[in-house]
């Protein structure tokens, strides 16, 4: 059972990191970024090329993935989302744009990087073994430890940034109330761009981090997005602690579910449980009501 919990913790930390980026974009722009998974995928490819192919050290390649995706985020925001938000008559138009960009990124990646699964050498080799798993023992690879550690670090860093820095406070102000933030002298346009960039960068970092243990291919995006949606919904859309909690919950639910039920039943139960949960708490755990 301990192994199951460790599996859950690893998944949870990773999921939380993925969900954070999505919820960030949502809180700032009210956009459900369907392309989040595709951004994750691109982050994986950045690290694959820089670290795996060109031999750059991992600790440089990973931030590079964040920066590249952050820039893509800025461009997307500027050229795709802002125009749509400015001209559309319905809120869902931004969702539509997100679907369009997801399709674009996925096919661009397929054309540029090919159809193959890619992987990189392990950053740290070795494994921590404590007994036989079949007998209730526990194993934890150093790679997984590294991933969990970096994920937690990234989450803490983001929370610190949002809590204690000036641009971070501006982000929170915009997330809370755009007009009020504007009145308080916050540069809403820049802050929105920053928010989208951070959201995209988080996806890139998650992808770049996970390529070290999962590999990456052009088609992984949509699954990541769907899972991220679940986590964000459980926690409440646009709420940081909600995303973290949602990620952890899904991680543990998946790990424990796979231990008890045959594969797909786990996700059936997760989906049904989530639907029922949302009926009683329509805004997730910490979310604000819609509207």
């Amino acid at each position, binding site marked *: 059972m301990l*192994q199951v919990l460790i599996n859950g913790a690893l998944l949870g930390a990773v999921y939380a990191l993925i969900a954070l980026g999505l919820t960030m974009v949502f809180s700032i722009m009210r956009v459900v970024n369907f392309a989040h998974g595709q951004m994750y995928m691109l982050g994986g490819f950045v690290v694959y090329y820089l670290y795996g192919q060109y031999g750059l050290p991992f600790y440089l390649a990973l931030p590079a993935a964040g920066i590249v995706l952050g820039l893509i985020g800025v461009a997307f925001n500027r050229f795709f989302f802002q125009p749509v938000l400015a001209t559309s008559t319905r809120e869902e138009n931004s969702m539509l744009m997100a679907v369009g960009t997801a399709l674009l990124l996925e096919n661009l990646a397929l054309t540029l990087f090919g159809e193959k*699964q890619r992987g990189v050498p*392990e950053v740290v080799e070795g494994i921590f073994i404590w007994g036989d798993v*079949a007998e209730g023992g526990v194993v934890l690879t150093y790679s997984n430890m590294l991933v969990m550690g970096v994920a937690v670090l990234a989450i803490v860093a983001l929370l610190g940034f949002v809590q204690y820095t000036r641009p971070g406070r501006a982000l929170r102000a915009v997330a809370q109330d755009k007009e009020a933030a504007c009145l308080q002298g916050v540069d809403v346009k820049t802050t929105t761009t920053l928010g989208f960039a951070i959201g995209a960068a988080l996806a890139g970092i998650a992808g770049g981090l996970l390529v070290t243990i999962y590999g990456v291919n052009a088609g992984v995006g*949509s699954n990541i997005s769907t899972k991220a949606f679940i986590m964000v919904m459980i926690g409440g859309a646009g709420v940081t602690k909600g995303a973290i909690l949602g990620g952890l919950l899904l991680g543990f639910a998946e790990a424990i579910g*796979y231990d008890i039920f045959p594969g797909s039943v786990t996700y059936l139960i997760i989906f049904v449980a989530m639907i029922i949960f949302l009926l009683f708490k329509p805004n997730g755990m910490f979310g604000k009501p819609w509207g």
Partner: protein
Amino acid sequence: MKNRSILRCTLLAIAAPLAILAAPVHAQDVLKIGVNGVMSGEAASWGLVNKYCAETTADVYNAKGGVDIGGKKYKIEIVALDDKNDPKLSVSNAEKLTSEGIKYIIGPNIDTTALAVKPVVERAKAMNFPYAFAKELYSPPANASVLGMVASYQVGPIMYDYLKTKKGVKSIAFLARNESDSKNQQQEGVEAAKKLGLTITADKDTYEPGTKDFMPVLTKIIKTKPDAIVLSGVAPADAPLLNKAARDLGFKGSLSTETAQDSKILAQVAGAKANGFLSVGGASTPEIQSDAMKAYIEAYKKRVGEWNDEAGTKVYALELIIAVLQKNPAAINDVEVFKKEMETFSMVNPFVKDGKTKLEFTGKADFGRRSQVGVPLVVNEFQDKDFKTLFVGTIKN
């Protein structure tokens, strides 16, 4: 007046594209071969490899000025259509291909799409070569589909027997990707293993397509203490992760799958942790490949950029089609001739080194008729970044 213009616009909007779609292209002495399969989205690699293989074969022939059929030189043209893994699209793709007069179509990739296409191909008096394993595609009364590769239920028993006799395996756990094809493979595998007297420790476990962390599902499997784990219908992207997770969890037994994999992916993602992994191969392992195969691999690299071992099992379909057409040129416009030829056709497998291996149509034992490309049944073991051929068998006929 404005209303009429709307009407006209709509008419134009619907009719004009259709007119373009309908425009028939007839060129002299071109042999058109269709490829119908998934070429985008999550499973893109399956259909793309089919497409690349067919295109490479065409490249090889066209470089020599075309293929000689009945004294005429034909240029080979590949028409590849993406069905996005959606049966509705597979059907309209098949209609499009057959409406262009194409008689031979490679693909689709999975049961869902292959079964949807079956009636279309049968009606249009064409043939297709799917890479799906559903038996109703190939057993009479079905008569238009030819399995393009080795089916899992053909290689499974041989593999389990090998595991049992050579590796001392007594118990097997099965894990499948949760999809129609894979689950079928799992069920067939379980039955075959039972027949061999092996103990089955897990027979229903699945993972969702898109899963990346296999620790949870493998933790459960490993707790059942099997000697070997069989991965049913596992996608090339999943195999290295499954190997890695199983080894990380301390699993010491054998891992195997009945589908084709790519060594580079295994080496990149799982590294040494994939050592000992058994999978099905084509003819691309260095031990058995002929010069023709080497040239093919070079041509493939030229077209695609890099070789994919999965393609090793998919080099045969078009090669065999062309060989039959060369033997009996009447088949070029009449698939009935082709079907008749299938009964007796035999050639030397050009891709295998010894020059003795036969390439013919097989499958009588499983389907009741010769409706399968007689790909050599090659079992590979992954060892230090590459596949080593373990043994070469033939499909019971």
